[in-house]
Each structure stands twice: as structure tokens, then as C-alpha cells.
């Protein structure tokens, strides 16, 4: 690793890998930092060394990732796995920990490709052991060939159905799918059907997934309007409300999911401008045509700048990579535009399905703004809805004040699992738009940093 790079890319998912490939093609001195032990991001997790499971389980979309990881490996960029980037300053000073030691380096350009995370799903009992996310089920399947027999899946969104389908392909029994997609979403989504039909592959895939789930005889319970997880030391049952009645299913494993949202911790901590995306119900970094954020020299590529999916992320990575090369001075405007053209066309095509998906799988309010007093919002500091209501009642005007009032968002996850809920909950309680409530002010380190590492931090000059 060097103390200075022309381009530093944070994240080795589709966007980061594609950006690295572009940069390396022009010989720019580049580095890719990624927290996982192998490239691929969450979507192509463990694609180089998949668990010993029948290839068909994951489907061809997954295996597309191995092309990208190979490109990254061959690119000539320094690829640093197991690297936790805990700060990027607006002047592009990067603090990273590898193998337990922290260091600082600098870059002319930075591309943040930190992807997405699953939207919080605050329901009573969601902190019980063995209540996990659908994404975690997929990670365990991809990286460890582990699956939970007889699990209940609950929520909404393409990933939920995909993981259920993958479980079924792997021969694992699924006890039930509790679908929280409100019926009204279907009617609203129908308006976007024409656009979606211009990207029929996604519709066909979706229909195949649902047909597969039906064919396997998994109870698909639609119209679920409320959920709670029950158990003492771990989850033992799920209760759900449908048509006004509560039903109970015994289950020792539950997977929740209601869509993915941009992972904004790094971009916020850099000081990049963000905006509330009402269609996707999330905060996202503001970017220009080349993915550059409001902070000069910092670009955001992939789902971090709004959810568009893995293939779109790849195009965005290329575009951001070309933008960075142009700003470095490696390529001219003409070369940049020419090479970006196919990626732009690809991105446009990938985005056609989004309005349909965003409308159909828009999570219903009661699962975003928890109505039950006892529901834990901040898992780290165990702050529940009642505590937040009380704080707002005595004049707490936003997420940052809430921290002082209640320690909400002050734990090690640094708001990743409560930030969206808190923004929307305060907006609801104060009757103000979420965009006015704002988000946590995030500051480095964006991941807990051992004091010893900080104390022994080497400045770039001393690292040579």
C-alpha cells in the first residue's frame, strides 16, 4: 500500500470493482479498500469461493459477479481486503485499519462505493436472537452453505422473495412468507407497468420467483398489517395481524426484510450533501452526472447514491471512474464521454424498472414509523418508541438532539439501524416533512476505532 494514490475506491461491490477496472485501464494509481475478506460486495458475496452449494441455487445473476471480481484482480489496482475505512476527510485524507493497525493515506480522487444496507424493520421483539434479516440469510447461504430449516420470512421487496426462492432451490423448507406489501401498492404500481415492460427481464424474473414459491407450497400470507416476535432467550413464535385478526406461527428462526437503502454513513461523515428521496423513502448523497458529490473530489457510485440495483451500480462505477480519471487529468472530456456512453445507456435501461419496484414494494408506514410504545428503535442503546415520544414532547427537535436526550443513535452501529426510523418518527410526531427533520450528524470514525490505533496513527509522510 502506498501513502498516496491518484484514486481511492471504498468498497469492492459492483460499483467499486467497475470503477477500479476503468481507472486501471488508464494506468491511474488506484487502491480499492473493502471490509470483507473477498471482493464482490454483498450482492456477489463470496462469488470467488462460494460455499459448496449447487450453482443453480443462486441463479446466473449471481455468477455474473465472478467476471467483475476477475477484472478487479487483473486490473492492477491495489486491492486491500479486510480494510475498515473509518474516515475520509473532505480533503481526501483516508483513515483505514488493516489487520488491527490504523494508517492514514491521501488520494487525488475518492469514489465511495459503500452500497446499501437493509432498511430497519422495527417491530416488537426484533432484537431477539434468531430474528435476522433476509440479507443475512443470503450471506450465510452464499458464504457458508448454511440455511435455517423451517424459517419464517416476513416483509416485502424483491430480495425477500429471492432469498425464499434460493432456500427452496437448495431444498430447504420455508415455514411461511408473511407479506407486508399493502394491497393498495399493487394498484399504484400498475401505473408504472408500461415503463417496467420496457425492462421485461425483471418482471419475468419476479413472476418466476413468486411462481416458484407458490409451486413449492409455501404458505404465502399476503396483506399482513402488523407483526411481533415472541420469545424469551430467542425467538420462538411470530404473531401477525391480517384482516384485523392476530395469528401465531411457531418458529425458531425469522428473517425480516423491507427493502434496501443507501449506506450513507461514510458520505455523511465526509460532509457530502444529502437529500431525502421520497420515492425510495431514504437519504441519499447528491451527485452530478459523473457521480461527484457536493464535496470536490469525492464521488459516490452505486446504491449509496440511491437504490438502482447491482447492474446499474456497475454502470455507475464505470461512469464515476471515468469522471475521476478526467478530474485527475488522465483522460480528456471527449474520451471520457465516449467511454461513458454505453454505461449511460445501460444505466438508463436499468432504471426503467425502478418506479414500478419502488411503488410496489414501498414499505407501509406502520413498519417504518413503529406505532407500538415498546418497540425498540435504537438497538444499541435500547431506546424505544416511548422514550423518543417523550423526548420530542419536551422539545427535542431532531435526531441530533435526541442523542443528548436519550442516547438514541449513540451506540456502536452509529445509527445505521435506527437513523431512518428516527427521522421518520420525529417527522411524524412533529408533523413536519422528513426533509426538514434531517438525519444524524455523522462524524468519523464511522466504525468504532480502538483508541490504541488512533494513538499510534502514522501520518502519510511517516508511512513510506
Amino acid at each position: 500500500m502506498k501513502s498516496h494514490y491518484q484514486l481511492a475506491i471504498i468498497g469492492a461491490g459492483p460499483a467499486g470493482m467497475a470503477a477500479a477496472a476503468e481507472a486501471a485501464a488508464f494506468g491511474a494509481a488506484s487502491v480499492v479498500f473493502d471490509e470483507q475478506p473477498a471482493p464482490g460486495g454483498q450482492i456477489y458475496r463470496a462469488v470467488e469461493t462460494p460455499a459448496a452449494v449447487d450453482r443453480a441455487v443462486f441463479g446466473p445473476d449471481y455468477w455474473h459477479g465472478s467476471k467483475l471480481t476477475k477484472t478487479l484482480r487483473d486490473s492492477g489496482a491495489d486491492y486491500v481486503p479486510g480494510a475498515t475505512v473509518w474516515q475520509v476527510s473532505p480533503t481526501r485524507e483516508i483513515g483505514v485499519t488493516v489487520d488491527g493497525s490504523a494508517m492514514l493515506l491521501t488520494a487525488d480522487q475518492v469514489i465511495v462505493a459503500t452500497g446499501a444496507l437493509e432498511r430497519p424493520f422495527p417491530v416488537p421483539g426484533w432484537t431477539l436472537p434468531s430474528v435476522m434479516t433476509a440479507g443475512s440469510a443470503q450471506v450465510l447461504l452464499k458464504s457458508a452453505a448454511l440455511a435455517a430449516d423451517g424459517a419464517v420470512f416476513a416483509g416485502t421487496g424483491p430480495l425477500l422473495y429471492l432469498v425464499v426462492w434460493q432456500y427452496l432451490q437448495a431444498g430447504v423448507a420455508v415455514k411461511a412468507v408473511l407479506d407486508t406489501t399493502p394491497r393498495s401498492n399493487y394498484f399504484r404500481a400498475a401505473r408504472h407497468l408500461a415503463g417496467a415492460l420496457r425492462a421485461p427481464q425483471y418482471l419475468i424474473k419476479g413472476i418466476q420467483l413468486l411462481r416458484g414459491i407458490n409451486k413449492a407450497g409455501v404458505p404465502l400470507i399476503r396483506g399482513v398489517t402488523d407483526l411481533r416476535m415472541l420469545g424469551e432467550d430467542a425467538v420462538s413464535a411470530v404473531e401477525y395481524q391480517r384482516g384485523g385478526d392476530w395469528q401465531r406461527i411457531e418458529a425458531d428462526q425469522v428473517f425480516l426484510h423491507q427493502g434496501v437503502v443507501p449506506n450513507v454513513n461514510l458520505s455523511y461523515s465526509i460532509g457530502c450533501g444529502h437529500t431525502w428521496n421520497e420515492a425510495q423513502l431514504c437519504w441519499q448523497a447528491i451527485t452530478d452526472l459523473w457521480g461527484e458529490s457536493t464535496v470536490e473530489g469525492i464521488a459516490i457510485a452505486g446504491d449509496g447514491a440511491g437504490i438502482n440495483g447491482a447492474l446499474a451500480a456497475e454502470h455507475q462505477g464505470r461512469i464515476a471512474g471515468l469522471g475521476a480519471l478526467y478530474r485527475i487529468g488522465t483522460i480528456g472530456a471527449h474520451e471520457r464521454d465516449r467511454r461513458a456512453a454505453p454505461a449511460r445507456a445501460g444505466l438508463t435501461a436499468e432504471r426503467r424498472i425502478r418506479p414500478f419496484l419502488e411503488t410496489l414494494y414501498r414499505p407501509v408506514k406502520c413498519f417504518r414509523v413503529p406505532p407500538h410504545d415498546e418497540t425498540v428503535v435504537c438497538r444499541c442503546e435500547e431506546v424505544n418508541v416511548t422514550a423518543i415520544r417523550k423526548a420530542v414532547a419536551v422539545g427535542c427537535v431532531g435526531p441530533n438532539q435526541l442523542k443528548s436526550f436519550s442516547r438514541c443513535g449513540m451506540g456502536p452501529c452509529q445509527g445505521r439501524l435506527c437513523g431512518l426510523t428516527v427521522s421518520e418518527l420525529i417527522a411524524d410526531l412533529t408533523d413536519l416533512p422528513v426533509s426538514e427533520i434531517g438525519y444524524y450528524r455523522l462524524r468519523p470514525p464511522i466504525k468504532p476505532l480502538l483508541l490504541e490505533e488512533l494513538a499510534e496513527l502514522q501520518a502519510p509522510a511517516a508511512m513510506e
Partner: protein
Amino acid sequence: MFTKVGDGDRDLVKVIFEDKEIMAPPGQSVAAVLLAEGIRSCRETPVSGEPRGPYCMMGICFECLVVIDGEPNQQACMRTVREGMLIKRQHGVAQIGPDAKAESDPAE
């Protein structure tokens, strides 16, 4: 309860969770290995002491904190198992400092 859906792994490594020996496939995360053993919770929270287990499996939720080779606050989903790794539950507030390490490190 998680079970293996693929072929069996070879060249297993031995790790110890609390007092239990576990043969684990190399390259896997500590969290995956614990879940495969039927260990559902790995810590108690410092606030109320309630049990928690892995949640996101991608390093963001900090629910799967354990003590590894005497080092507290380790994300089990982000650490890969190694031969001889000593894993302990994290009870409430992580003990830190030289005493905590000596207690759980057999080498000392």
C-alpha cells in the same frame, strides 16, 4: 436452527467457544460457525442485559459482538475462524485492559 445444505468441508480448524470445541470450515466467519452450532445468542447487552445474536451478517449492526482471543468487541460476522481461536460470549460491558486479556488468554 441452521444446517449445512452443501457438501461437507475438509481441513476443518478447531476453535473453542466458551468451553466447547468446535470443528469449523476455514474461511468462514465466527458468526456463521456459531450459528451452525446452534448458538443463537452470543452476548448480553450492556444496557439491560438482554441476549442478542447475529442480525445483519454484514458488519453494520454490531449485535454479534464477542470476545476473541481476549479482545472484546469483535464483530463475529467480520472475523474469520482460525485454528485455536478462543471465542467467548461478551457479557454486558466489555472488560478491557490487561486483566481481561490475561483471564481469557491461555498463553499467559
